[in-house]
């Protein structure tokens, strides 16, 4: 199991290979459908996004509300393909990692290779388990979107598997069921 720190560095990315199981620790940002639409719009208009995307990892996740005394609610991954139309633009602006579940489009995979980034899958449907790995959580943008707001999460030993590495390998293609 490889240890990965977030935000990423190019050295870390280059060491990650498709199929690697990793434990991610550090800071990641949640973004799902609505937040992607807004951030993409800001980038197209030349505006600054709510956080600097450089070397960051975004996590496709819309958590349940935190109960009193807890940092966050359940927080597993959502389907990545819904973010496909926005991802190449975010990668152009310095994003280096994505965590979600399921396959990516050809355009996203090409952009991952071009920008030497990495796509991880977390384990879908394990929201309670993932909550244990979030040390702190703070809404940094779009609170009106509820679960679709951008949360800054500090995570520890967050389990994921490398699906698309910077070399263009794809776990799901290698696994040959598609």
């Amino acid at each position, binding site marked *: 199991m490889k240890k990965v720190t977030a935000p990423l560095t190019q050295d870390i990315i280059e060491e990650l290979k498709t199929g690697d199981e990793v434990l991610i620790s550090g800071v990641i940002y949640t973004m799902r459908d609505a937040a992607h639409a807004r951030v993409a719009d800001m980038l197209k208009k030349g505006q600054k996004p709510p956080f600097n995307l450089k070397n960051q990892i975004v996590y496709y996740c819309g958590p349940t509300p935190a109960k009193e005394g807890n940092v966050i609610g*359940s927080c597993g991954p959502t389907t990545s*393909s819904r973010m496909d139309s926005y991802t190449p633009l975010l990668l152009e602006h310095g994003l280096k990692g994505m965590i979600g579940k399921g396959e990516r489009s050809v355009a996203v995979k090409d952009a991952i290779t071009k920008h030497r980034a990495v796509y991880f899958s977390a384990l*879908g449907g394990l929201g309670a388990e993932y909550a244990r790995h979030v040390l702190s959580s703070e809404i940094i943008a779009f609170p009106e979107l*509820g*679960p679709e707001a951008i949360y800054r999460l500090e995570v520890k030993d967050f389990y994921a598997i490398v699906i698309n590495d910077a070399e263009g390998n794809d776990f799901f293609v290698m696994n040959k069921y598609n």
Partner: protein
Amino acid sequence: MRVITEKKISEAVESLVLSANHYLPYDALKALKEAAENEKSKKAKGILYKIVENHKLAKKGVYPLCQDTGIAVVFAEIGSGITIDGDIYAAINKGVETGYKKGGLRKSTANPVTRGNTGTNTPAIIHIALVKGSGLKLSLMAKGAGAENKSALKMLSPADGEEGIIEFVIDTVRKAGASACPPFVVGAGIGGNFETAPLLAKKALLRDIGDKNTRDKNAARLEKILLEKINSLNIGPLGFGGKTTALAVKVETHACHIASLPVAVNIQCHSARHKTITI
């Protein structure tokens, strides 16, 4: 005649929302544990045990099983021997609203065009049937979108036959792949018409994992064939390979037009959250 009040219905629905989101049905949990024991792939085995572990955490009542606590789908069977005092739709929706609120569950119901969240996880999807008896049976599913989005309906030609049915079901499961959170329960509705087939597929998901269709021996035969084929796709738990792609396939059939062959496939993720109560 026995009278059931709106309040009684709302309270029952509220309890279903809370329990469905924190406890897997016993049969689903048992099937996951058995699959974990039987998996040969180390990764697949590990993932299945993590799913079981996630359930242990969720049942403490703080964190729901999954952050996608679903859109609420409610099947109500009203016995002919009872009277509902009030509006059953309003009562169910009230129970859904208070259940999601009290449970701190995610509100995942939105306007389809503007995408504005309704803020209450209502309206629920409600199906009502009139049956014999003197009770009100309420079944609630917390249906997540990851698997629902990969479900499909196809109007086959009668000439496609059994082979065409099998091919469509397998193709739908293959396309569902990793993102729909396998191992699945696959509900297949065969026959009826454009709206019947999906409803049969959805209802099929309420059946026990271990049962088989006793009303239609062809359906039972297809369940067995389909399960074997699906589990040889090597999608595996959460798409990381292995022989556990589905825990069960449930087939329901209905007579159809001589010129039609509708087939619907409703995918249920491994977090097969549903619960039934009779009041």
